[in-house]
């Protein structure tokens, strides 16, 4: 049951990330073409700049958990990999616990701010969508990150092994 739920979360994250990345590139590329080839229509598509920035914000925070699970978040692991295995297990638990508290803390701050901004009814300047739609990715992204730290803390995932396989990537 748990693995099916996790599989569903991963699939959803991946689909949304791919869609956002393609949409960002496609829309902005289209905007560049319009500005250079048919500049009198440029004002019609002024919303694209804002939309692509919002998409980028979503990409950054939505991929937090997935990147952690795959061992892709940047960390200086040289000392970590050289200490005795028994001590290393305790250190892994400490990192996971600290990461969980940090992510949960920011998810909580993000949630309160999103509710606050939603209540004000503020909309974005050109796209005219509720600005809370941008900020909601903070509680969502850090919530998914907190979940990944928790899963690793209880040994359900093995992100440190994944990180060892990915040594040197992500910079």
């Amino acid at each position: 049951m748990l693995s099916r739920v996790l599989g569903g979360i991963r699939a959803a994250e991946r689909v949304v990330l791919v869609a956002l990345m393609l949409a960002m590139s496609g829309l902005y590329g289209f905007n560049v073409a319009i500005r250079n080839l048919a500049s009198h229509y440029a004002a019609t598509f002024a919303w694209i700049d804002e939309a692509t920035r919002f998409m980028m914000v979503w990409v950054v925070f939505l991929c937090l958990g997935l990147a952690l699970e795959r061992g892709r978040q940047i960390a200086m692991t040289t000392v970590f990999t050289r200490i005795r295995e028994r001590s290393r297990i305790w250190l892994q638990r400490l990192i996971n616990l600290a990461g969980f508290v940090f992510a949960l803390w920011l998810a909580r701050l993000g949630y309160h701010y999103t509710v606050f901004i939603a209540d004000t009814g503020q909309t974005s300047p050109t796209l005219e969508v509720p600005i809370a739609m941008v900020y909601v990715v903070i509680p969502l992204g850090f919530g998914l990150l907190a979940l990944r730290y928790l899963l690793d803390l209880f040994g359900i995932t093995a992100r440190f092994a994944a990180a060892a396989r990915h040594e040197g990537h992500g910079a």
Partner: protein
Amino acid sequence: MITLLLGILAAFLLAFGFEMFLVLGIPSLIAKEIFFANLPDVVVVQKLVGGVNHTTLLAIPFFIFAAEIMARGSIARHLTDLVKAMIGHRLGGMGHTTVASCMAFGSISGSAPATVAALGRIVYPELGRLGYRDRFSLGLIVASAETALLIPPSITLIIYGWVTGTSIGALFAGGLAVGIVLGVTFMIYVHWISARSAIVRTPRPSWAERMAAFRAAGWALGLPVIILGGIYGGVVTATEAAAASVLYALLVECFVYREMGMRRLAAVAEESAITTGVVFILLAVGSLLSYLITLARVPDEILALLRSADVGPILFLLIVNVVFFVAGMFVDPNSQLLVLVPTLFPVAVALGIDPVHFGLIVCLNICIGMITPPFGLDLFVASSTLGKPILTVVAGVWPFVAINLAVLMLITYVPDISLVLPRLFMG
């Protein structure tokens, strides 16, 4: 006292392998609670989002995406073949080919580790076959890949430009000049070593072979033309050039090489999103940290300290180089940028140092950090992709670190090297 404790906490988190965003983020949150308790919590969220919500920064995911599309196929091989066809027959030809191929690959990809991984596998066996010593070959590959951080598009320079408000176009032009100076210096060293060793020289290729190599690599060379031509022709901004690069890369892969199906495109997009995410989360958390550094008036205090000690620009730049050299041994490039630049940049400007010149000094320092033991990232990438012990890589890299330091001194104290192309292109 509390500041010192927070510094020790950050050093502990860094040394024991905590994720870099925790190293930057946990002390920031504690500092906010202790020193700036009156600061509303909303500022934390606003800084996190504000740290990545900017059009200039869109250039980074686009350049990463374009490089992922182009670099997955046979581009690295085609570029190396082209450079080899042009200069491979000369004395030290394969060594020069290594340097020039890294520079050419760097004009597509802004990542030094990606350059080590992509080109190392191609040139390393050939360097060995022609008689270059193992250590020298490894050092050369790792050092040459640094030029990818300097030659546009450079993610490091975009982040520096964003943090300091310096023109990305001017930084790219300066990076091109410094990248060429560094590459040429490596080539002089290659020539010197080759003249003193029993290196086998390869026959000069025919012009037909050269044209065939050019045709195979020609599409890859279109990308730097779009980027540099577009920006300096005044047609597009750096972000627009990046978006155009993605469209160009897609067109080439879909219609010329015909290697890009929907499944592969989705995989490349996913990989690009994750690569973007792991860099940008540092920008987001770093934005909070640099805000707190500014609130605490750290740059003002450093400036006052330097003024009271009568430190001028020359001594200040020497201090900057030492600070970055030490930091580069232990901390990843983006974290160095996000912690040190907001602290040192206002001081540099107050001392009359040109922002572009300072940016190139910072970027070259970051390059050196990538190849300096004990934690230089590129050393580990070379060790894992080429299957060589890390100590062999480290042994080979020292002469190149020395060359880098000499070039760094040159760049530091001859500002015109960094500024001649920005003046020429940007007016």
